[in-house]
């Protein structure tokens, strides 16, 4: 840990908490199952996604992808492609102008969304199989694709590191993992493990996965003169994309406008700047025409990274009571040769269990593959598979109920940092979930339930995901007609952003929801951070809260210019927003509406823009969401088919702001976890480093028939240290899912499967 961080942490611990937000108790809009406001444009097909904006004179680009994983381009003949019908331009490393490499991904004060240090089209070097080596611009998409198919570069191939397994011996410990130490330890974990009677020591593997949002990545780039750019891009991070693209092409950030209100599913895959965006902008700059670039599904697999593979060891020793005496979690993930993202799989045990001693450490290895990136619950999704499978194995070793074993190791404080928990009701979640599921009726013995040829088992696992808040700016305006506008550059990927933030602003300003307009998805609006890490809801909420306070303060002082005002003499703490205006707390009938104040003051509007401070509370407290996942599986005795037949997810995620949208997030996370556990896997050919199944036909996301009845329950207990008492809910749903399934399969069959996905062959 560096010194600066140490200083900030010390400061964070002595800093007073933010005042408790009174909206935590309000229920007029917050906490209500309000249907999403963007529902209508989406069910009618009217909502525009990035490739769908009508632009005059649009031309189209297509990418040529390398077919080797490492080496150099020796020759690239583009003459046939140049002469193909409709072709306007063919760009390769030989004729592309110099571009800057965007700095790596950062959500800080200078946002950036770089994903790789490879100099796309500015080098003859190849770093992964699928790296863009040329881009063709033509009148129609088909002509561009056709011309691209005519380009066959000559390579001098070199042996690449194509296999993750073979690269493991070269793994190194990175300097840090998302600002945390790569290794934390206490006591002599190995000695305690060796001397312990009750222990498990298992090695787990997880494969690469891809996000596979149904919307393909796509961009439309429009150069305006020499120094202005409009970019429609399917991005979870408009501010980062704008800053990065400006840097790549030497433009001023304010001259790059990135528009991305609706994102057709992201799951992390649209958080970074991937090469198609840069190439689309390049093509527009060179041809002087508006250009659209939509890679095919296979193209997306080649140039947009997914989740790293991992190999993880979990070894736990316990006393006969079940209390953990030591806990080891260590392992390796992969990153590409040109990025830095050691996925934080070792985070879950740092915060989940009371441990007397531990060693938690992770390494990373470099492979010639497309840069890995965040995918829903980076770290925790694969980390909980290993940790929660091992704990289940330990429960059998100790002859203890798996829920009981977990409860016996509930910590009072964060086991590694020693910080107080901001809000932890995992025990309550387990109680709710177990009741709903009927866990007490589960026979303890493995292989004891059968229905014909189907073996039945029930499993459970804990899920966890941190509470992240990121610096976010918002502008809030109250107009003379009593309506409000709230603006920030954030995204609607389907989480319910527009709906929940409108609920919030209406509640905050005591306005009906119809009078609040929430505007988003445009980098020229005040900068929000990435819609990732389950951080957007509370990050935007705090910015809106603080901007609203400033607007109310100004309205109060405007009102008080009139000495006759019912608000005369009132301090900010004496008043609050009520009945579409400002009213005294002690005399609720005394006050003025916004309309009255602005009319009297002769103003069209009052507005404030506000940027939130750094999330110091996350250094002072251990802040996490929790899940207790329960499932039932049926495993066919002869064929090894696995069917998930029942699911209960019990969540502790602070206060739920909109049950309708939140529950859908939980369920969506769970089914992505079912895919991760049973069917999904990105397969690399270790000879060539090429992805073998780059399609929705061969990469199996769950279909309707794969999905059981999923019941969701939640504690709904507000976290006093987060905006609105809420936590983000985008990632928590997937965590613990794969382990719950593996544990249920073990309960059904007696087989402990430690490698994902759990395909039929592993059960034969």
């Amino acid at each position, binding site marked *: 840990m560096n010194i600066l961080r140490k200083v900030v942490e010390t400061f964070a611990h002595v800093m007073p908490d933010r005042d408790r937000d009174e909206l935590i108790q309000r229920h007029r809009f917050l906490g209500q199952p309000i249907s999403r406001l963007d529902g209508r444009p*989406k069910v009618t097909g009217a909502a525009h996604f990035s490739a769908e904006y009508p632009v005059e004179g649009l031309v189209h680009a297509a990418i040529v992808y390398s077919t080797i994983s490492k080496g150099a381009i020796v020759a690239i003949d583009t003459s046939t492609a140049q002469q193909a019908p409709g072709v306007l331009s063919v760009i390769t490393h030989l004729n592309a102008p110099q571009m800057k490499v965007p700095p790596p991904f950062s959500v800080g004060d200078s946002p950036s969304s770089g994903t790789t240090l490879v100099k796309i089209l500015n080098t003859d070097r190849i770093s992964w199989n699928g790296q863009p080596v040329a881009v063709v611009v033509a009148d129609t998409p088909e002509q561009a694709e056709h011309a691209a198919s005519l380009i066959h570069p000559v390579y001098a191939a070199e042996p690449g590191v194509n296999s993750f397994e073979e690269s493991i011996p070269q793994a190194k410990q990175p300097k840090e993992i998302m600002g945390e130490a790569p290794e934390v330890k206490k006591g002599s974990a190995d000695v305690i493990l060796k001397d312990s009677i009750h222990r498990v020591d298992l090695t787990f593997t997880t494969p690469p996965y891809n996000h596979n949002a149904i919307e393909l990545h796509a961009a439309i780039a429009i150069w305006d003169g020499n120094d202005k750019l409009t970019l429609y891009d399917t991005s979870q991070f408009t501010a980062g994309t704008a800053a990065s693209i400006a840097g790549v092409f030497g433009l001023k950030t304010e001259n790059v406008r990135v528009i991305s209100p609706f994102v057709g599913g992201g799951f992390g895959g649209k958080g970074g700047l991937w090469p198609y965006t840069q190439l689309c902008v390049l093509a527009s700059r060179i041809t002087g025409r508006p250009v659209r670039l939509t890679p095919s599904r296979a193209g997306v697999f080649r140039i947009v990274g997914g989740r790293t593979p991992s190999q993880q060891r979990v070894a736990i020793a316990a006393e006969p009571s079940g209390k953990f005496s030591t806990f080891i979690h260590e392992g390796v993930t992969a990153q590409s040769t040109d990025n830095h993202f050691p996925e934080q799989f070792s985070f879950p045990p740092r915060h989940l269990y009371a441990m007397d001693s531990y060693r938690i450490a992770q390494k990373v290895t470099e492979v010639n593959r497309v840069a890995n990136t965040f995918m829903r619950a980076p770290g925790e999704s694969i980390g909980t598979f290993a940790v929660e499978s091992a704990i289940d194995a330990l429960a059998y070793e100790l002859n203890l109920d798996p829920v009981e074993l977990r409860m016996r190791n509930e910590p009072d404080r964060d086991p590694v940092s020693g910080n107080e928990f901001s809000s932890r009701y995992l025990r309550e979640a387990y109680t709710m979930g177990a009741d709903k599921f009927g866990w007490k009726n589960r026979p303890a013995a493995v292989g004891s339930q059968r229905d014909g040829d189907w073996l039945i088992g029930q499993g459970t696992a804990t899920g966890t995901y941190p509470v992240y808040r990121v610096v976010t700016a918002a502008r809030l305006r109250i107009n003379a007609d009593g309506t409000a506008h709230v603006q920030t550059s954030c995204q609607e990927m389907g989480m319910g952003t527009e709906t929940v933030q409108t609920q919030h602003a209406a509640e905050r300003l005591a306005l009906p929801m119809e009078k609040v307009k929430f505007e988003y998805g445009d980098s020229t609006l005040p900068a929000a951070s990435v819609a990732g890490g389950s951080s957007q809801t509370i990050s935007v909420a705090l910015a809106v809260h603080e901007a609203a306070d400033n607007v109310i303060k100004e309205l109060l002082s405007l009102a008080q210019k009139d000495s006759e005002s019912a608000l005369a003499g009132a301090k900010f703490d004496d008043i609050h927003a009520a009945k579409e205006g400002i009213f005294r707390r002690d005399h609720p009938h005394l006050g003025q509406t916004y309309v009255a104040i602005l009319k009297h003051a002769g103003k069209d509007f009052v507005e404030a823009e506000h940027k939130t401070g750094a999330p110091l509370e996350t250094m002072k407290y251990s802040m996490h969401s929790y899940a207790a996942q329960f499932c039932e599986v049926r495993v066919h005795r002869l064929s090894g088919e696995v069917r998930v037949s029942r699911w209960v997810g019990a969540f502790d995620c602070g206060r739920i702001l909109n049950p309708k949208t939140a529950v859908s997030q939980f369920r969506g996370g769970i089914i992505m976890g079912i895919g991760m556990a049973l069917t999904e896997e990105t397969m690399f050919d270790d000879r060539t480093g090429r992805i073998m199944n780059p*399609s929705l036909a061969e990469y199996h996301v769950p279909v309707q028939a794969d999905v059981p009845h999923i019941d969701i329950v939640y504690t709904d207990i507000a976290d006093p240290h987060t905006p609105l008492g809420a936590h983000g809910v985008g990632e928590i749903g997937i965590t613990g899912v794969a382990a719950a399934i593996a544990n249920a399969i073990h309960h059904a069959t007696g087989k402990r499967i430690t490698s994902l996905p759990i395909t039929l062959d592993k059960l034969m």
Partner: protein
Amino acid sequence: MGSNIAGLMDFVLNNRRIQLPQCRPQTTLLEWLRSNGLTGSKEGCAEGECGACTVLLVRPHGTGSKYVPVNSCLLFLPTLAGQEVLTIEALNENKQLAEAQFAMAEAGGSQCGYCTPGFVMSLFAEQYRPGRAGPCDPHSMGGNLCRCTGYRPIRDAALSLGPAPDDSFRGRLSSPAPSMIPVSYTSIEGRLERPGDLAQCTTFLKKYPDAKILAGATDLAVESNLAYKRWPVLMSIDAVAELQVFQDAADHVEIGAGLPLSEIEFLWEHAPLVAREWLPLFASILIRNRATLGGNLGTASPIGDAAPMLLALDAELKLGGANGIRRVKLQDFFLGYRKTQLEPGELIVSIIIPKPFPNQARFYKVAKRRMDDISTVAACFAVNFDADGRIAQARLAYGGVAAVPIRVTEAEQSLLGKRWDELAVKQAQAIIASELKPLSDHRGSSAYRLAMAQTLLKKFWCER
């Protein structure tokens, strides 16, 4: 209607007649819609997997019509000549949401919203399906993928919908659908011919023996969209009445090679269990609304799912060419990897399944995903017993374990005259191991495929 002057054609799109400009014959409806401002139909895969591009065709149903949801990414534009199509944009033309749209929005069935129009179109077609009663069946949306919601709110939306309202969409169904007119479409980039009968077909094929035969295009359009394959001459069989026959006779069933699978499902009232369980496993509804038996057999894919069932049912094929019709046993039809007995200029006319059906017959498909997936191993087994209860006939057919769909004849022989018991199964399993040498690929290893081939036989016996 549906002018077939070279290079010109029209069709009805969202209640308006559209004159199409010159295009490549392999331009898909989806490409055309999206590049002409109708972006409600989405592209997620361009291969009929995700259903985000679902549109409705108005097709004949008795004397009236029905809405048939299909993947617009798999429809070549010229094949729409004279046809009638609805896209998502048509559903709320009077500014009022269709019930399927309202239900999806209220249930929270739309999350990121990208797959939503596709689900809405499938659900709309289900609600207006003639003869349907009760709540809408969520599995009518089985060909649509959603990565966000976990499907529950989408299912809830379906279950909340009752009978179709009495509106203009329902009114449309009482008048006839457009008929499938002949087409002769040429453009500088190729030619698409849709002959009106079998004689025209064979004449055309005689003239253009290299013409690519186009049925439901659920394979060809994928090759076109993703591998950029181009055929100078395409011949669609959609207007050939002889390929659309269905006859359930006393001693056989004859199924036209060009009949979409969902039509077979509808027409074959007394289909045996094996056919009924085979249909949903074959592919999603959106694919079944286009895919044909002739196409599935004609491509001779070793992993096509039609062949194992038809082999187990001892089907025969009628092949038509310039020299008339000839009949070939399906088991003799496949010659090698993607090679068949079809002579140049010949096409599959119909499939004949003898009756009575076997005493016991079942279809099994092992794939990585339960639905909407390509087989790792497909198997179909059929046995007949004599008066004594001994096995009189056995046909054990597989896909995915050899270069062609195959029967394990030695294992079949081993069963004859035996009691249908575990010992017989074990002996047959041992022989299967010597008869089959499956390949390893990313869908499964050789050992796994072999193990599955053996285990499925036991499953068949267990489920006797």
